[in-house]
């Protein structure tokens, strides 16, 4: 038996030790080395409004007079029918022979902007890195000689290229959209500045990552634009520069790199736009012009580069890169309203998808280059039935893989540009991939700008050069 004194001492010692342990337990912080990841740790500064004063169309340089007998036209992104199929009747080559016949080549500012062609003139919205200006440049299709240049100073930092849009043109108007959402309308013959719009200032547009990729669409002297921000879509009268209608943007969807595409369903003409946030159909004409007819949020990746592919029977195929995959949905009229029904939605390894370029529909088949996250079929050129986009009919095989480059159909042939500058000709077959010939045209990189074929000439670009290749058969 312990003495009472010893017992007390023992109890006291136990209490002291327990108290010390309790204090230690209270003070000890086992997670002192763990830091919470909270917003703001990257020291991103608050966004401030740009104080840069931009005078759209402020400068003009005239270089040379011009006459041409050429009458070919490629009037906007994906051509007049928005299908990326050249209607040029010229018989085109099936092989490159000893080497491609390069008519001319000019240096451009770094970017992916592609040209339009109208009656022997080539127009491209370039970025002049010396002058630090968006520059609408006009060249002769036959010689490559620069005829004039309309420009305005705007500061653009190199960010995976600077320019990346295609103008829209008709007899009287030429409309461009610059990297920072500056819209400019000029006279295509004289280069005279007509009017300008700053979508960031006027519509609170958010400039997409890597700058604007949206290309304006011209429809009977009315230009259709998708600013996002304050208005989802707007229509501007080219004659006056006045806004004809504005589409409300209740969900605050933002501008994407996608362009507005036309669609007609049950006799109703509408504009289809894939914004960052969702896809929308907007009435193109009539009393409800500019009003939203239908919309879907089923497909809303944070980066959208391809444009909607309008199929038969109200079906629309939409795809995007960076793991987003694709969606096939159908718009149906029910009474006075429209309904959207998703038919298929899948990841890139499970069907047709595309990262940058918009697929082509030809002879009831759809063609695309699969993105790099498409598993074993990555970067292959593929064909599918657009009614079931998960079933690949054929691929270009393991040896013929492409990158992010463009493709076009002309004279029953595919012209496919790999982003390293290799140009492939293949028969536009729905049965199998039939390679005709391929050649390395240039040692460039990032050859992503859309191709144009008109008057037997193929216009292509890499990050820094625009080339004109004579592809006439004789």
């Amino acid at each position, binding site marked *: 038996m312990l003495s009472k004194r010893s017992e007390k001492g023992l109890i006291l010692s136990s209490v002291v030790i327990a108290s010390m342990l309790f204090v230690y337990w209270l003070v000890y912080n086992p997670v002192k080395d763990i*830091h919470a990841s*909270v917003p703001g*740790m990257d*020291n*991103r500064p608050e966004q401030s409004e740009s104080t840069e004063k931009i005078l759209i169309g402020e400068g003009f340089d005239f270089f040379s007079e011009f006459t041409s007998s050429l009458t070919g036209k490629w009037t906007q992104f994906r051509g007049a029918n928005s299908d990326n199929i050249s209607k040029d009747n010229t018989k085109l080559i099936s092989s490159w022979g000893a080497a491609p016949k390069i008519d001319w080549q000019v240096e451009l500012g770094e970017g992916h902007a592609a040209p339009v062609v109208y009656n022997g003139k080539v127009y491209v919205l370039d970025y002049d890195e010396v002058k630090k200006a968006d520059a609408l440049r006009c060249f002769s299709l036959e010689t490559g000689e620069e005829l004039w240049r309309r420009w305005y100073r705007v500061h653009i930092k190199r*960010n995976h290229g600077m320019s990346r849009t295609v103008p829209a043109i008709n007899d009287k108007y030429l409309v461009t959209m610059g990297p920072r959402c500056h819209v400019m309308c000029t006279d295509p013959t004289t280069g005279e500045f007509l009017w300008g719009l700053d979508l960031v200032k006027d519509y609170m547009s958010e400039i997409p990552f890597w700058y604007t990729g949206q290309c304006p669409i011209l429809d009977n002297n009315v230009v259709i634009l998708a600013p996002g921000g304050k208005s989802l879509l707007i229509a501007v009268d080219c004659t006056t520069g006045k806004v004809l209608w504005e589409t409300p943007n209740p969900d605050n969807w933002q501008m994407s790199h996608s362009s507005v595409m036309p669609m007609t369903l049950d006799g109703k003409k509408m504009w289809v736009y894939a914004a960052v946030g969702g896809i929308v159909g907007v009435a193109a004409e009539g009393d409800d012009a500019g009003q939203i007819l239908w919309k879907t949020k089923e497909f809303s990746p944070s980066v959208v580069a391809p444009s909607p592919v309008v199929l038969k029977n109200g079906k629309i195929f939409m795809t995007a890169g960076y*793991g987003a995959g694709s969606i096939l949905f159908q718009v149906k009229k029910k009474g006075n309203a429209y309904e959207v029904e998703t038919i298929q939605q899948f990841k890139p390894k499970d069907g047709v998808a595309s990262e940058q370029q918009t697929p082509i529909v030809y002879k009831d088949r759809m063609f695309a280059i699969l993105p790099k996250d498409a598993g074993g079929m990555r970067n292959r050129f593929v064909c599918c039935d657009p009614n079931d986009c998960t079933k690949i009919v054929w691929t270009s095989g393991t040896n013929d893989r492409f990158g992010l480059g463009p493709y076009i159909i002309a004279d029953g042939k595919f012209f496919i540009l790999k982003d390293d500058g290799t140009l492939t000709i293949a028969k536009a077959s729905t049965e199998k991939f039939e390679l005709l010939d391929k050649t390395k045209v240039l040692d460039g990189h990032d050859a992503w700008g859309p191709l144009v074929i008109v008057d037997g000439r193929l216009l292509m670009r890499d990050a820094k050069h625009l080339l004109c290749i004579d592809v006439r058969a004789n």
Partner: protein
Amino acid sequence: MKKDRRDFINTCFRFAAGAGIVGIAGVLAVKSQKGDFLWQLDPSKCTQCGRCATSCVVTPSAVKCIHVYDMCGYCDLCGGYFRPNVKNLSTGAENQLCPTGAIKRSYVEDPFFKYEIIDELCIGCGKCVKGCGAFGNGSLQLQVSHDLCVNCNQCAIASDCPSDAFSRVPIDQAYKFAGFKSNKKI
């Protein structure tokens, strides 16, 4: 010829000494060979399956993500840093792809951001590598970090690697990352 006991013992000793010398030479040769070669993974074969994080005998794994800066686009929307389809490009944990927060993002100038790998936190899972490859230039790549690797005779990850991306490389070419400048540790 009949050997006597003395000759027999001498012969045995000679054999034993010879076998010993050969054995020692062999062991030294193997050891010296092991010292001249290291395990490394080829980023062009890697499919970012995630096994590097779990198969390595070292915890956390000796495989780390490295950043090849001369390939990086310094994007605001970085596919290696952000989860797919994030709406808010901030450093909030809910937006980050890395399960251990091992990538430090810092503002450079509008619109560029720098991304640094914190080696101590990286577990080599390859999620950022996959995101960068799918979205960007592929500047984030997995490599065996030789200051952590114990250079096992048979690498446990190499045995588990489904794409046969591991091989022994000469010590003077210890890193195999793909990029504009190769075979140089960042």
